[in-house]
Protein backbone atom coordinates (compact mmCIF):
# COMPACT_ATOMS: atom_id res chain seq x y z
CA UNK A 1 0.00 0.00 0.00
CA UNK A 2 2.77 2.42 0.95
CA UNK A 3 4.48 1.69 -2.32
CA UNK A 4 1.31 2.41 -4.22
CA UNK A 5 0.78 5.65 -2.34
CA UNK A 6 4.32 6.72 -3.17
CA UNK A 7 3.75 5.91 -6.81
CA UNK A 8 0.55 7.92 -6.88
CA UNK A 9 2.31 10.77 -5.19
CA UNK A 10 4.98 10.67 -7.89
CA UNK A 11 2.28 10.63 -10.55
CA UNK A 12 0.64 13.61 -8.91
CA UNK A 13 3.83 15.64 -9.32
CA UNK A 14 4.46 14.43 -12.84
CA UNK A 15 0.98 15.24 -14.11
CA UNK A 16 0.93 18.63 -12.41
CA UNK A 17 3.92 19.62 -14.50
CA UNK A 18 2.24 18.31 -17.63
CA UNK A 19 -0.94 20.29 -16.88
CA UNK A 20 0.99 23.50 -16.30
CA UNK A 21 2.99 23.08 -19.51
CA UNK A 22 -0.13 22.17 -21.54
CA UNK A 23 -1.78 25.39 -20.48
CA UNK A 24 1.33 27.54 -20.87
CA UNK A 25 1.85 26.22 -24.38
CA UNK A 26 -1.75 26.97 -25.30
CA UNK A 27 -1.84 30.23 -23.39
CA UNK A 28 -5.19 29.15 -22.04
CA UNK A 29 -6.88 26.58 -19.83
CA UNK A 30 -7.86 26.40 -16.18
CA UNK A 31 -4.64 25.48 -14.41
CA UNK A 32 -5.79 25.99 -10.85
CA UNK A 33 -9.12 24.13 -11.25
CA UNK A 34 -7.17 21.23 -12.70
CA UNK A 35 -4.65 21.15 -9.87
CA UNK A 36 -7.35 21.04 -7.20
CA UNK A 37 -8.91 17.88 -8.61
CA UNK A 38 -5.94 16.05 -10.13
CA UNK A 39 -5.23 13.91 -7.07
CA UNK A 40 -8.82 12.66 -7.01
CA UNK A 41 -8.53 11.73 -10.68
CA UNK A 42 -5.21 9.96 -10.15
CA UNK A 43 -6.69 7.97 -7.26
CA UNK A 44 -9.61 6.91 -9.45
CA UNK A 45 -7.69 6.11 -12.61
CA UNK A 46 -4.16 5.21 -11.55
CA UNK A 47 -5.22 3.96 -8.13
CA UNK A 48 -7.64 1.49 -9.65
CA UNK A 49 -10.78 2.77 -7.93
CA UNK A 50 -12.42 3.16 -11.32
CA UNK A 51 -12.92 0.18 -13.62
CA UNK A 52 -11.94 1.21 -17.11
CA UNK A 53 -9.92 -0.01 -20.04
CA UNK A 54 -7.75 2.35 -22.05
CA UNK A 55 -7.68 -0.12 -24.93
CA UNK A 56 -11.48 -0.27 -24.99
CA UNK A 57 -12.82 3.07 -23.76
CA UNK A 58 -16.44 2.18 -24.48
CA UNK A 59 -16.27 -1.20 -22.72
CA UNK A 60 -19.92 -1.61 -21.62
CA UNK A 61 -19.07 -2.77 -18.09
CA UNK A 62 -16.78 0.19 -17.35
CA UNK A 63 -17.53 2.50 -14.48
CA UNK A 64 -18.70 5.83 -15.84
CA UNK A 65 -16.72 8.90 -14.89
CA UNK A 66 -18.51 12.16 -15.57
CA UNK A 67 -16.42 15.30 -15.35
CA UNK A 68 -19.22 17.74 -14.62
CA UNK A 69 -16.74 20.56 -13.95
CA UNK A 70 -15.61 20.62 -17.55
CA UNK A 71 -13.06 23.37 -16.96
CA UNK A 72 -10.92 20.76 -15.22
CA UNK A 73 -10.40 19.04 -18.57
CA UNK A 74 -6.58 19.48 -18.61
CA UNK A 75 -6.43 17.26 -15.53
CA UNK A 76 -8.61 14.56 -17.07
CA UNK A 77 -6.85 14.74 -20.42
CA UNK A 78 -3.45 14.43 -18.72
CA UNK A 79 -4.67 11.36 -16.83
CA UNK A 80 -6.25 9.70 -19.86
CA UNK A 81 -3.20 10.33 -22.03
CA UNK A 82 -0.94 8.94 -19.33
CA UNK A 83 -2.99 5.74 -19.27
CA UNK A 84 -2.92 5.44 -23.03
CA UNK A 85 -6.50 6.33 -23.92
CA UNK A 86 -4.99 8.46 -26.68
CA UNK A 87 -1.60 9.61 -27.90
CA UNK A 88 0.21 11.74 -25.34
CA UNK A 89 1.31 14.08 -28.10
CA UNK A 90 -2.28 15.31 -28.22
CA UNK A 91 -1.56 17.16 -24.99
CA UNK A 92 1.02 19.27 -26.81
CA UNK A 93 -1.72 20.52 -29.12
CA UNK A 94 -4.18 21.26 -26.31
CA UNK A 95 -6.43 24.16 -27.35
CA UNK A 96 -4.31 24.92 -30.39
CA UNK A 97 -4.83 24.71 -34.11
CA UNK A 98 -4.92 21.11 -35.27
CA UNK A 99 -5.49 19.89 -31.71
CA UNK A 100 -8.15 17.38 -30.87
CA UNK A 101 -9.58 19.12 -27.82
CA UNK A 102 -9.82 22.52 -26.21
CA UNK A 103 -10.38 24.24 -22.91
CA UNK A 104 -13.60 22.48 -22.01
CA UNK A 105 -14.36 18.80 -22.01
CA UNK A 106 -15.35 17.14 -25.27
CA UNK A 107 -17.41 13.96 -25.53
CA UNK A 108 -15.67 12.57 -28.60
CA UNK A 109 -12.30 12.13 -26.91
CA UNK A 110 -11.58 8.49 -25.99
CA UNK A 111 -12.38 7.95 -22.31
CA UNK A 112 -14.57 11.04 -22.06
CA UNK A 113 -18.30 10.48 -21.61
CA UNK A 114 -19.78 13.96 -22.08
CA UNK A 115 -19.23 17.43 -23.40
CA UNK A 116 -18.98 19.79 -20.48
CA UNK A 117 -18.12 23.38 -19.81
CA UNK A 118 -21.57 24.62 -19.03
CA UNK A 119 -21.99 23.75 -15.37
CA UNK A 120 -24.82 21.85 -13.75
CA UNK A 121 -25.29 19.38 -16.60
CA UNK A 122 -22.95 16.47 -15.93
CA UNK A 123 -24.35 15.64 -12.54
CA UNK A 124 -27.84 15.09 -13.93
CA UNK A 125 -26.41 13.05 -16.78
CA UNK A 126 -24.55 10.93 -14.23
CA UNK A 127 -27.76 10.37 -12.28
CA UNK A 128 -29.53 9.35 -15.49
CA UNK A 129 -26.73 6.87 -16.17
CA UNK A 130 -26.97 5.52 -12.62
CA UNK A 131 -30.72 5.06 -13.08
CA UNK A 132 -30.12 3.39 -16.44
CA UNK A 133 -27.65 0.99 -14.82
CA UNK A 134 -30.16 0.12 -12.10
CA UNK A 135 -32.93 -0.50 -14.61
CA UNK A 136 -30.69 -2.79 -16.64
CA UNK A 137 -29.22 -4.44 -13.52
CA UNK A 138 -25.73 -3.38 -14.53
CA UNK A 139 -23.23 -3.45 -11.71
CA UNK A 140 -20.92 -0.67 -12.79
CA UNK A 141 -20.68 2.52 -10.76
CA UNK A 142 -21.14 6.09 -11.91
CA UNK A 143 -18.74 8.72 -10.55
CA UNK A 144 -19.29 12.42 -11.08
CA UNK A 145 -16.83 15.18 -10.33
CA UNK A 146 -18.42 18.50 -9.39
CA UNK A 147 -16.83 21.79 -8.58
CA UNK A 148 -18.03 23.48 -5.40
CA UNK A 149 -18.70 26.61 -7.45
CA UNK A 150 -20.82 24.46 -9.73
CA UNK A 151 -23.11 23.80 -6.78
CA UNK A 152 -24.59 27.27 -7.15
CA UNK A 153 -26.44 25.92 -10.17
CA UNK A 154 -30.01 25.07 -9.16
CA UNK A 155 -29.99 22.02 -11.39
CA UNK A 156 -27.45 20.40 -9.04
CA UNK A 157 -30.02 20.33 -6.28
CA UNK A 158 -32.77 19.09 -8.58
CA UNK A 159 -30.54 16.14 -9.32
CA UNK A 160 -29.44 15.69 -5.70
CA UNK A 161 -33.09 15.27 -4.68
CA UNK A 162 -33.78 12.96 -7.58
CA UNK A 163 -30.81 10.67 -6.94
CA UNK A 164 -31.63 10.21 -3.27
CA UNK A 165 -35.30 9.57 -3.99
CA UNK A 166 -34.41 6.88 -6.51
CA UNK A 167 -31.86 5.35 -4.14
CA UNK A 168 -29.07 5.63 -6.66
CA UNK A 169 -26.44 4.12 -4.38
CA UNK A 170 -24.40 3.35 -7.49
CA UNK A 171 -23.80 7.08 -7.90
CA UNK A 172 -20.78 8.67 -6.23
CA UNK A 173 -20.22 12.37 -6.48
CA UNK A 174 -16.81 13.81 -5.75
CA UNK A 175 -16.99 17.49 -4.93
CA UNK A 176 -13.84 19.49 -5.49
CA UNK A 177 -14.26 21.79 -2.48
CA UNK A 178 -11.57 24.35 -3.21
CA UNK A 179 -13.60 27.22 -1.76
CA UNK A 180 -13.09 29.35 -4.82
CA UNK A 181 -15.27 30.42 -7.68
CA UNK A 182 -14.44 32.57 -10.70
CA UNK A 183 -14.15 35.97 -9.05
CA UNK A 184 -14.13 35.31 -5.32
CA UNK A 185 -14.13 32.79 -2.51
CA UNK A 186 -17.36 30.84 -2.21
CA UNK A 187 -18.08 31.96 1.33
CA UNK A 188 -17.82 35.61 0.25
CA UNK A 189 -20.01 35.12 -2.82
CA UNK A 190 -22.96 33.21 -1.43
CA UNK A 191 -22.22 30.98 1.50
CA UNK A 192 -22.18 27.27 0.69
CA UNK A 193 -21.58 26.14 4.28
CA UNK A 194 -22.76 24.10 6.03
CA UNK A 195 -22.12 22.26 2.79
CA UNK A 196 -22.09 18.68 4.05
CA UNK A 197 -25.32 19.22 5.94
CA UNK A 198 -27.00 20.39 2.78
CA UNK A 199 -26.08 17.12 1.05
CA UNK A 200 -27.17 15.11 4.09
CA UNK A 201 -30.48 16.94 4.16
CA UNK A 202 -30.97 16.00 0.52
CA UNK A 203 -30.67 12.33 1.48
CA UNK A 204 -27.04 11.57 0.68
CA UNK A 205 -24.35 9.78 2.61
CA UNK A 206 -21.54 12.27 3.02
CA UNK A 207 -17.87 11.95 3.85
CA UNK A 208 -15.46 14.84 4.18
CA UNK A 209 -11.88 14.15 3.20
CA UNK A 210 -8.63 15.83 2.33
CA UNK A 211 -8.77 15.72 -1.45
CA UNK A 212 -5.03 15.77 -1.78
CA UNK A 213 -4.37 12.81 0.51
CA UNK A 214 -4.36 9.51 -1.34
CA UNK A 215 -4.76 7.73 1.99
CA UNK A 216 -7.94 9.64 2.77
CA UNK A 217 -9.28 9.22 -0.76
CA UNK A 218 -8.75 5.46 -0.54
CA UNK A 219 -10.34 5.32 2.91
CA UNK A 220 -13.42 6.97 1.46
CA UNK A 221 -13.64 4.99 -1.75
CA UNK A 222 -11.85 1.65 -1.58
CA UNK A 223 -14.89 -0.24 -0.30
CA UNK A 224 -17.35 1.72 -2.36
CA UNK A 225 -18.37 -1.33 -4.38
CA UNK A 226 -19.57 -3.20 -1.30
CA UNK A 227 -21.42 -0.30 0.26
CA UNK A 228 -24.61 -1.39 2.01
CA UNK A 229 -26.28 2.01 2.08
CA UNK A 230 -29.25 2.71 -0.17
CA UNK A 231 -28.16 6.33 -0.45
CA UNK A 232 -25.95 7.90 -3.07
CA UNK A 233 -22.56 8.98 -1.75
CA UNK A 234 -21.12 12.50 -1.74
CA UNK A 235 -17.42 12.80 -1.07
CA UNK A 236 -16.63 16.39 -0.19
CA UNK A 237 -12.94 16.66 -0.94
CA UNK A 238 -11.23 19.65 0.66
CA UNK A 239 -8.75 20.89 -1.89
CA UNK A 240 -6.61 23.89 -2.73
CA UNK A 241 -7.16 25.59 -6.05
CA UNK A 242 -3.75 25.62 -7.68
CA UNK A 243 -2.27 23.10 -5.23
CA UNK A 244 1.43 22.57 -5.90
CA UNK A 245 2.01 26.05 -7.31
CA UNK A 246 1.94 28.38 -4.33
CA UNK A 247 2.11 31.46 -6.52
CA UNK A 248 -1.29 30.60 -8.03
CA UNK A 249 -3.12 29.67 -4.82
CA UNK A 250 -5.61 31.71 -2.83
CA UNK A 251 -6.06 34.36 -5.48
CA UNK A 252 -9.23 34.06 -7.60
CA UNK A 253 -7.48 35.96 -10.40
CA UNK A 254 -5.88 32.73 -11.54
CA UNK A 255 -9.15 30.92 -12.30
CA UNK A 256 -8.96 31.29 -16.06
CA UNK A 257 -5.58 32.94 -16.43
CA UNK A 258 -2.41 31.17 -17.46
CA UNK A 259 0.80 32.63 -16.06
CA UNK A 260 2.75 34.74 -18.51
CA UNK A 261 6.35 36.01 -18.55
CA UNK A 262 7.92 36.17 -15.11
CA UNK A 263 4.82 34.55 -13.57
CA UNK A 264 5.50 31.51 -15.72
CA UNK A 265 8.97 31.07 -14.31
CA UNK A 266 7.66 31.67 -10.81
CA UNK A 267 4.98 29.02 -11.32
CA UNK A 268 7.46 26.49 -12.65
CA UNK A 269 9.82 27.19 -9.80
CA UNK A 270 7.06 26.87 -7.20
CA UNK A 271 6.00 23.56 -8.66
CA UNK A 272 9.57 22.30 -8.81
CA UNK A 273 10.18 23.24 -5.20
CA UNK A 274 6.92 21.69 -4.07
CA UNK A 275 7.70 18.55 -6.02
CA UNK A 276 11.14 18.34 -4.45
CA UNK A 277 10.34 19.24 -0.88
CA UNK A 278 6.75 18.24 -0.25
Amino acid sequence: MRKQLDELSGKSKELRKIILEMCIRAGTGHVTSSLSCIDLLIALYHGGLLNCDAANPSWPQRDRFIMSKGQGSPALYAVLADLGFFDQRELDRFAQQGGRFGVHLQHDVPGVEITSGSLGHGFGIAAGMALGAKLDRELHLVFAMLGDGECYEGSIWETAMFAAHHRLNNLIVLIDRNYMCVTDFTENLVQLEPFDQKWKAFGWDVVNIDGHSFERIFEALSSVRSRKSIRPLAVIAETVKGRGIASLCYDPLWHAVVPQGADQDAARLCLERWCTHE
Partner: protein
Amino acid sequence: MSSLPQRDAFWNRVFDIAKKDRNIMVITADMGAPSLDQFRKDLPAQFVNVGIAEQNAVTIAAGLALSGKKVFTYAIAPFITLRCLEQIRVESAIMGLPITFVGVGAGFGYPDSGPTHHMLEDIAIMRALPNIIIHSISDSVMAAAIGERSCGLKIANYVRLDRQLLPDLYDSATDFSPGLTVLKEGTDRFLVATGSMTTTALAIARRLEDRGLSLGVIDVHTFPLNAELFLRIVQSATKLVSIEEHFLAGGLGSAVCEVLNDNNRGSVQLARIGLSMEQGFTGCYHYGGRDVLRKQYGLDDASLEQRIVRHFA
Protein backbone atom coordinates in the same frame (compact mmCIF):
# COMPACT_ATOMS: atom_id res chain seq x y z
CA MET B 1 -63.54 17.22 -34.56
CA SER B 2 -61.04 14.63 -33.46
CA SER B 3 -62.16 12.40 -30.65
CA LEU B 4 -58.70 12.39 -29.17
CA PRO B 5 -56.44 15.23 -28.01
CA GLN B 6 -53.08 15.27 -29.77
CA ARG B 7 -51.20 14.40 -26.59
CA ASP B 8 -53.27 11.24 -26.06
CA ALA B 9 -52.94 10.20 -29.69
CA PHE B 10 -49.19 10.72 -29.37
CA TRP B 11 -48.72 8.92 -26.06
CA ASN B 12 -51.05 6.04 -26.94
CA ARG B 13 -48.91 5.25 -29.96
CA VAL B 14 -45.68 5.55 -27.98
CA PHE B 15 -47.17 3.32 -25.28
CA ASP B 16 -48.05 0.61 -27.81
CA ILE B 17 -44.45 0.56 -29.02
CA ALA B 18 -42.99 0.84 -25.50
CA LYS B 19 -44.88 -2.31 -24.45
CA LYS B 20 -42.64 -4.20 -26.85
CA ASP B 21 -39.49 -2.16 -26.29
CA ARG B 22 -38.38 -1.76 -22.70
CA ASN B 23 -35.73 0.75 -23.72
CA ILE B 24 -38.37 3.37 -24.44
CA MET B 25 -38.73 5.67 -21.44
CA VAL B 26 -40.86 8.67 -20.58
CA ILE B 27 -39.57 11.35 -18.23
CA THR B 28 -42.32 13.73 -17.22
CA ALA B 29 -41.91 16.94 -15.28
CA ASP B 30 -45.12 16.26 -13.36
CA MET B 31 -47.29 16.51 -16.46
CA GLY B 32 -50.07 13.99 -16.65
CA ALA B 33 -52.46 12.76 -19.28
CA PRO B 34 -54.91 9.87 -19.28
CA SER B 35 -52.66 8.23 -21.85
CA LEU B 36 -49.69 8.55 -19.51
CA ASP B 37 -51.52 6.83 -16.67
CA GLN B 38 -51.13 3.55 -18.53
CA PHE B 39 -47.35 4.07 -18.56
CA ARG B 40 -47.40 4.71 -14.83
CA LYS B 41 -49.57 1.65 -14.23
CA ASP B 42 -48.38 -0.93 -16.75
CA LEU B 43 -44.80 0.14 -17.50
CA PRO B 44 -43.62 1.67 -14.23
CA ALA B 45 -39.95 0.94 -14.97
CA GLN B 46 -40.24 2.99 -18.16
CA PHE B 47 -41.90 6.00 -16.57
CA VAL B 48 -40.19 8.54 -14.35
CA ASN B 49 -41.77 11.63 -12.85
CA VAL B 50 -38.97 14.02 -11.83
CA GLY B 51 -41.33 16.58 -10.32
CA ILE B 52 -41.54 20.13 -11.56
CA ALA B 53 -37.89 20.15 -12.57
CA GLU B 54 -37.70 20.32 -16.34
CA GLN B 55 -33.95 20.91 -16.55
CA ASN B 56 -33.37 17.82 -14.47
CA ALA B 57 -35.76 15.92 -16.74
CA VAL B 58 -33.48 16.72 -19.66
CA THR B 59 -30.17 15.86 -18.00
CA ILE B 60 -31.59 12.63 -16.56
CA ALA B 61 -32.89 11.85 -20.05
CA ALA B 62 -29.41 12.48 -21.44
CA GLY B 63 -27.88 10.03 -18.98
CA LEU B 64 -30.48 7.44 -19.88
CA ALA B 65 -29.89 8.06 -23.58
CA LEU B 66 -26.19 7.44 -23.00
CA SER B 67 -27.24 4.17 -21.36
CA GLY B 68 -28.98 3.07 -24.53
CA LYS B 69 -32.51 4.22 -23.75
CA LYS B 70 -34.83 5.99 -26.18
CA VAL B 71 -36.09 8.79 -24.00
CA PHE B 72 -39.08 11.14 -24.20
CA THR B 73 -39.28 14.18 -21.93
CA TYR B 74 -42.62 15.84 -21.38
CA ALA B 75 -43.83 19.15 -19.98
CA ILE B 76 -45.87 22.20 -20.91
CA ALA B 77 -44.25 23.54 -24.08
CA PRO B 78 -42.53 26.71 -22.80
CA PHE B 79 -41.02 24.83 -19.89
CA ILE B 80 -39.56 21.94 -21.88
CA THR B 81 -38.17 24.32 -24.52
CA LEU B 82 -37.30 27.75 -23.16
CA ARG B 83 -36.52 26.75 -19.59
CA CYS B 84 -34.34 23.86 -20.73
CA LEU B 85 -32.91 25.50 -23.81
CA GLU B 86 -29.33 25.24 -22.71
CA GLN B 87 -29.70 21.63 -21.58
CA ILE B 88 -31.19 20.81 -24.98
CA ARG B 89 -28.39 22.70 -26.68
CA VAL B 90 -25.57 20.90 -24.89
CA GLU B 91 -27.05 17.43 -24.58
CA SER B 92 -28.75 17.16 -27.97
CA ALA B 93 -27.56 19.88 -30.35
CA ILE B 94 -23.91 19.52 -29.31
CA MET B 95 -23.61 15.95 -28.02
CA GLY B 96 -26.20 14.63 -30.45
CA LEU B 97 -28.27 12.62 -27.97
CA PRO B 98 -31.52 11.58 -29.68
CA ILE B 99 -33.96 12.70 -27.01
CA THR B 100 -37.57 13.52 -27.92
CA PHE B 101 -38.76 16.73 -26.25
CA VAL B 102 -42.54 16.78 -26.08
CA GLY B 103 -44.26 20.06 -25.28
CA VAL B 104 -47.99 20.49 -25.00
CA GLY B 105 -49.74 23.82 -25.47
CA ALA B 106 -48.52 25.19 -28.80
CA GLY B 107 -49.64 28.76 -29.46
CA PHE B 108 -52.63 29.70 -27.35
CA GLY B 109 -53.29 26.07 -26.42
CA TYR B 110 -53.78 27.10 -22.77
CA PRO B 111 -55.96 30.08 -23.61
CA ASP B 112 -57.00 30.97 -20.07
CA SER B 113 -53.60 30.52 -18.46
CA GLY B 114 -51.93 33.73 -19.50
CA PRO B 115 -48.67 34.31 -21.36
CA THR B 116 -46.47 32.12 -19.14
CA HIS B 117 -48.28 29.13 -20.60
CA HIS B 118 -48.61 30.37 -24.17
CA MET B 119 -46.04 28.99 -26.58
CA LEU B 120 -45.26 31.64 -29.12
CA GLU B 121 -41.50 31.49 -29.73
CA ASP B 122 -40.65 27.79 -29.78
CA ILE B 123 -40.36 27.32 -33.53
CA ALA B 124 -37.94 30.25 -33.75
CA ILE B 125 -35.88 29.17 -30.80
CA MET B 126 -35.71 25.45 -31.48
CA ARG B 127 -35.10 26.15 -35.16
CA ALA B 128 -31.97 28.03 -34.15
CA LEU B 129 -30.45 24.81 -32.80
CA PRO B 130 -28.75 22.48 -35.26
CA ASN B 131 -29.22 18.73 -34.92
CA ILE B 132 -32.86 18.90 -33.82
CA ILE B 133 -36.00 18.31 -35.85
CA ILE B 134 -39.19 20.18 -34.98
CA HIS B 135 -42.54 18.49 -35.47
CA SER B 136 -45.30 21.08 -35.37
CA ILE B 137 -48.39 18.94 -35.05
CA SER B 138 -51.62 19.93 -36.76
CA ASP B 139 -53.91 17.01 -35.94
CA SER B 140 -54.19 13.85 -33.86
CA VAL B 141 -53.44 11.51 -36.75
CA MET B 142 -50.14 13.29 -37.24
CA ALA B 143 -49.52 13.24 -33.48
CA ALA B 144 -49.78 9.44 -33.45
CA ALA B 145 -47.62 9.05 -36.54
CA ILE B 146 -44.93 11.32 -35.10
CA GLY B 147 -45.10 9.39 -31.82
CA GLU B 148 -44.18 6.30 -33.80
CA ARG B 149 -41.55 8.11 -35.82
CA SER B 150 -39.95 9.50 -32.66
CA CYS B 151 -39.41 5.99 -31.28
CA GLY B 152 -37.04 5.25 -34.14
CA LEU B 153 -35.32 8.60 -34.64
CA LYS B 154 -31.55 8.66 -34.23
CA ILE B 155 -31.61 12.43 -33.88
CA ALA B 156 -33.25 14.68 -31.31
CA ASN B 157 -36.68 16.08 -32.04
CA TYR B 158 -39.10 18.52 -30.50
CA VAL B 159 -42.79 17.71 -30.77
CA ARG B 160 -45.10 20.68 -30.29
CA LEU B 161 -48.56 19.47 -29.50
CA ASP B 162 -51.71 21.51 -29.41
CA ARG B 163 -53.70 21.18 -26.21
CA GLN B 164 -57.12 21.73 -27.69
CA LEU B 165 -59.24 19.36 -29.70
CA LEU B 166 -58.86 20.17 -33.38
CA PRO B 167 -60.41 18.53 -36.44
CA ASP B 168 -58.59 15.60 -38.02
CA LEU B 169 -57.08 16.66 -41.34
CA TYR B 170 -55.26 13.50 -42.30
CA ASP B 171 -56.02 9.83 -42.76
CA SER B 172 -53.95 7.27 -40.96
CA ALA B 173 -52.10 6.17 -44.11
CA THR B 174 -50.49 9.59 -44.58
CA ASP B 175 -46.74 9.67 -44.98
CA PHE B 176 -45.46 12.63 -43.00
CA SER B 177 -41.81 12.06 -43.80
CA PRO B 178 -41.63 14.74 -46.55
CA GLY B 179 -42.07 17.32 -43.79
CA LEU B 180 -44.85 19.26 -45.43
CA THR B 181 -48.13 18.36 -47.03
CA VAL B 182 -50.34 20.03 -49.63
CA LEU B 183 -53.81 19.86 -48.10
CA LYS B 184 -55.45 21.81 -50.88
CA GLU B 185 -53.98 21.97 -54.34
CA GLY B 186 -53.00 25.33 -55.76
CA THR B 187 -51.01 26.80 -58.61
CA ASP B 188 -49.85 30.36 -58.11
CA ARG B 189 -51.31 31.30 -54.73
CA PHE B 190 -50.86 29.45 -51.49
CA LEU B 191 -51.50 29.73 -47.80
CA VAL B 192 -48.66 28.23 -45.78
CA ALA B 193 -49.59 27.30 -42.23
CA THR B 194 -48.45 25.24 -39.26
CA GLY B 195 -49.99 23.72 -36.13
CA SER B 196 -53.51 24.81 -35.25
CA MET B 197 -53.39 27.45 -37.98
CA THR B 198 -53.47 24.74 -40.61
CA THR B 199 -57.08 23.99 -39.75
CA THR B 200 -57.85 27.70 -39.87
CA ALA B 201 -56.06 28.23 -43.18
CA LEU B 202 -57.85 25.30 -44.78
CA ALA B 203 -61.26 26.54 -43.68
CA ILE B 204 -60.53 30.04 -44.99
CA ALA B 205 -59.26 28.68 -48.32
CA ARG B 206 -62.43 26.65 -48.74
CA ARG B 207 -64.62 29.66 -48.00
CA LEU B 208 -62.67 31.85 -50.41
CA GLU B 209 -62.88 29.18 -53.08
CA ASP B 210 -66.64 29.61 -52.97
CA ARG B 211 -66.08 33.31 -53.53
CA GLY B 212 -63.87 32.66 -56.55
CA LEU B 213 -60.44 33.03 -54.96
CA SER B 214 -58.55 29.78 -55.36
CA LEU B 215 -55.75 29.21 -52.88
CA GLY B 216 -53.63 26.17 -52.22
CA VAL B 217 -52.87 25.22 -48.61
CA ILE B 218 -49.54 23.84 -47.46
CA ASP B 219 -49.13 22.41 -43.96
CA VAL B 220 -45.52 22.75 -42.83
CA HIS B 221 -45.25 20.21 -40.04
CA THR B 222 -41.52 19.69 -39.90
CA PHE B 223 -38.55 22.00 -39.54
CA PRO B 224 -36.01 22.43 -41.01
CA LEU B 225 -38.41 23.18 -43.83
CA ASN B 226 -38.01 20.81 -46.77
CA ALA B 227 -36.79 23.50 -49.15
CA GLU B 228 -36.61 21.35 -52.25
CA LEU B 229 -40.17 20.09 -51.97
CA PHE B 230 -41.49 23.48 -50.92
CA LEU B 231 -39.91 25.23 -53.92
CA ARG B 232 -41.30 22.59 -56.24
CA ILE B 233 -44.82 23.09 -54.90
CA VAL B 234 -44.66 26.87 -55.14
CA GLN B 235 -42.71 26.98 -58.40
CA SER B 236 -45.46 28.92 -60.16
CA ALA B 237 -46.44 31.01 -57.17
CA THR B 238 -46.29 34.77 -57.23
CA LYS B 239 -47.92 35.40 -53.89
CA LEU B 240 -47.92 33.52 -50.60
CA VAL B 241 -49.33 34.10 -47.15
CA SER B 242 -47.86 32.40 -44.13
CA ILE B 243 -50.05 32.01 -41.05
CA GLU B 244 -48.86 31.02 -37.62
CA GLU B 245 -49.96 31.34 -34.01
CA HIS B 246 -46.43 32.36 -33.11
CA PHE B 247 -44.44 35.57 -32.95
CA LEU B 248 -43.29 36.68 -36.37
CA ALA B 249 -39.58 36.70 -35.49
CA GLY B 250 -38.04 33.45 -36.59
CA GLY B 251 -41.17 31.38 -37.04
CA LEU B 252 -42.79 29.73 -40.04
CA GLY B 253 -42.94 32.94 -42.09
CA SER B 254 -39.26 33.56 -41.46
CA ALA B 255 -38.42 30.03 -42.54
CA VAL B 256 -40.37 30.55 -45.77
CA CYS B 257 -38.57 33.88 -46.34
CA GLU B 258 -35.21 32.20 -45.92
CA VAL B 259 -36.01 29.46 -48.41
CA LEU B 260 -37.33 31.92 -51.01
CA ASN B 261 -34.45 34.32 -50.53
CA ASP B 262 -31.77 31.67 -50.61
CA ASN B 263 -33.12 30.16 -53.83
CA ASN B 264 -33.56 33.26 -55.98
CA ARG B 265 -37.29 33.39 -55.36
CA GLY B 266 -37.17 36.66 -53.49
CA SER B 267 -39.63 38.11 -56.00
CA VAL B 268 -42.47 36.06 -54.54
CA GLN B 269 -44.64 38.40 -52.53
CA LEU B 270 -44.96 36.84 -49.11
CA ALA B 271 -47.24 38.27 -46.43
CA ARG B 272 -46.32 36.92 -43.02
CA ILE B 273 -49.20 36.72 -40.58
CA GLY B 274 -48.53 35.95 -36.94
CA LEU B 275 -48.17 37.74 -33.63
CA SER B 276 -46.51 41.12 -34.05
CA MET B 277 -43.41 41.79 -32.03
CA GLU B 278 -44.59 45.36 -31.40
CA GLN B 279 -47.72 44.15 -29.69
CA GLY B 280 -45.70 41.67 -27.66
CA PHE B 281 -47.50 39.92 -24.86
CA THR B 282 -50.00 42.71 -24.24
CA GLY B 283 -52.73 40.82 -26.02
CA CYS B 284 -52.23 37.71 -23.90
CA TYR B 285 -54.08 38.93 -20.83
CA HIS B 286 -57.48 38.40 -22.38
CA TYR B 287 -59.68 35.52 -21.39
CA GLY B 288 -62.58 33.62 -22.86
CA GLY B 289 -60.89 31.22 -25.21
CA ARG B 290 -58.53 30.94 -28.12
CA ASP B 291 -60.65 33.03 -30.45
CA VAL B 292 -60.57 35.94 -28.02
CA LEU B 293 -56.78 35.83 -27.97
CA ARG B 294 -56.49 35.47 -31.71
CA LYS B 295 -58.68 38.53 -32.16
CA GLN B 296 -56.25 40.58 -30.07
CA TYR B 297 -53.58 39.88 -32.66
CA GLY B 298 -55.70 40.10 -35.78
CA LEU B 299 -55.65 36.33 -36.14
CA ASP B 300 -59.37 35.68 -35.86
CA ASP B 301 -61.07 34.24 -38.91
CA ALA B 302 -62.58 37.52 -40.11
CA SER B 303 -59.33 39.49 -39.77
CA LEU B 304 -57.31 36.72 -41.39
CA GLU B 305 -59.70 36.49 -44.29
CA GLN B 306 -59.54 40.22 -44.83
CA ARG B 307 -55.74 40.28 -44.75
CA ILE B 308 -55.51 37.32 -47.10
CA VAL B 309 -57.95 38.74 -49.60
CA ARG B 310 -56.11 42.06 -49.55
CA HIS B 311 -52.78 40.38 -50.24
CA PHE B 312 -54.09 38.34 -53.13
CA ALA B 313 -56.13 41.18 -54.61
